[in-house]
């Protein structure tokens, strides 16, 4: 066996990410480790490699939530709600595109209801909306989804907590080290500053980084608005000085 060398990643800034223990978000209280994380100064192939999905077969509507759960024919049975496109680039911290990476998303319908066995919210399910999408970024790191804007919904945290409209976004990136799940919020949503989950972020810039911007120029006239949301995975760099003499 030869000694493996893999590109390494910039250290993750744990103060920029939400802390495990964020008591305003009550479920984090019993689900946050009390012990310190064990830091691997010399990450191994386990952390520096990861799955690639270039050869995965995707369905024709996997990134089109207007189409991928519709029950009707070509001319009816579209989901209720504001038609939108969510698009953007996956880049690393050096601005390098992350090509051919799997981007997955899930969301509530326009009424704020999830198609999940455990969601009991009184807003109705939409027979034509599933709420799941996936795609692979192109060579320049671009991805796009077509969907409806999700509705806000109440949830048990404080007596009267509401989630702002959001889409859960999952990106694999090139390695286990770059694996990331986050949430996309919408520019101008008045619920963002009131959300306990948003408040797990300590820096207002972190919230702005997760807030998709309306891109009117890329919207389709008489069809759908466009929201731009770029995703940044950890910066990848080569190790030039393997032999330290």
């Amino acid at each position: 066996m030869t000694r493996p060398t893999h590109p390494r990643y910039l250290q993750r800034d744990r103060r920029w990410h939400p802390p495990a223990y964020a008591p305003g978000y009550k479920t984090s209280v019993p689900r946050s480790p009390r012990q310190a994380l064990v830091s691997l100064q010399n990450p191994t192939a386990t952390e520096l490699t990861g799955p690639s999905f270039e050869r995965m077969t995707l369905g024709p509507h996997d990134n089109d939530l207007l189409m991928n759960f519709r029950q009707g024919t070509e001319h009816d049975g579209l989901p209720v709600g504001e038609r939108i496109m969510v698009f953007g680039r996956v880049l690393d911290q050096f601005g390098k595109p992350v090509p051919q990476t799997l981007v997955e998303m899930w969301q509530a319908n326009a009424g704020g209801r999830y198609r999940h066995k455990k969601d009991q919210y009184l807003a109705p399910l939409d027979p034509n909306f599933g709420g799941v999408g996936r795609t692979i970024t192109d060579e320049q790191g671009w991805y796009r989804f077509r969907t409806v804007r999700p509705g806000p919904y109440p949830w048990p945290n404080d007596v009267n907590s509401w989630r702002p409209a959001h889409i859960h976004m999952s990106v694999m990136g090139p390695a286990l080290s770059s694996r990331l799940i986050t949430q996309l919020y919408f520019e101008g949503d008045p619920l963002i500053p009131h959300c306990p989950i948003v408040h797990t972020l300590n820096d207002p810039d972190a919230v702005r980084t997760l807030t998709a911007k309306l891109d009117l120029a890329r919207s389709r006239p008489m069809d759908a608005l466009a929201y731009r949301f770029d995703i940044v995975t950890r910066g990848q760099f080569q190790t030039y000085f393997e032999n330290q003499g």
Partner: protein
Amino acid sequence: MSQLIPLDPAATPGDLIYRESPSQTAGPYVHIGLALEVAGLPLREVEIGNTMATDQADGTPIELVGTVFDGNGDIVRDVFIEAWQADADGTYQSAWQHDNVFNSFGRAAPDAFGEGQWRFHTIKPGACLDARGQLMAPHVALSVFARGINIALHTRLYFGDETRANESCPVLNAVESPARRRTLIATPEPGDSGRIRYRFDIVLQGEGETVFFDF
């Protein structure tokens, strides 16, 4: 226009321009996106599931099972877990395909109304070298996502019947406390159809808290 905020307005590609996108919890409905069967959604033609190896795969077929507990000792039923492991020769097989006999990557989640146990069908990984050329004991990297977990927790499952390899594993030995090291060791037990099953419970907080890594 991107919503990203450059660290330095004068930065150009190649410079350090951005911070990583900050994490947010995967929430209680993670299954809709990443484990459709648990949500009750129809499956697409290809899904990434918890069968990482078929009977045709090289290596010893095994099952990995476990339960995740919170700081109150309650079962975390809405957990979602990703696994990443080497093949029987100690090589990571990055190119995931649904018809591979072995994939290094898999996903598992307990049933929505079940006992709260997650499970992988795989083969025992081989040992592989770390970055300095030292042999690591066979292991499976597990990433834990759930409601209430703000950023993924990364741990490693090691095998209880690999005592000698475990004792000399540089990553296990990076855990200073021997008592805490033991939280990374899965216990072998008889499994279905003669396979060995390894049980690996994960404790998020408190007594017996599992070791989680930063890297």
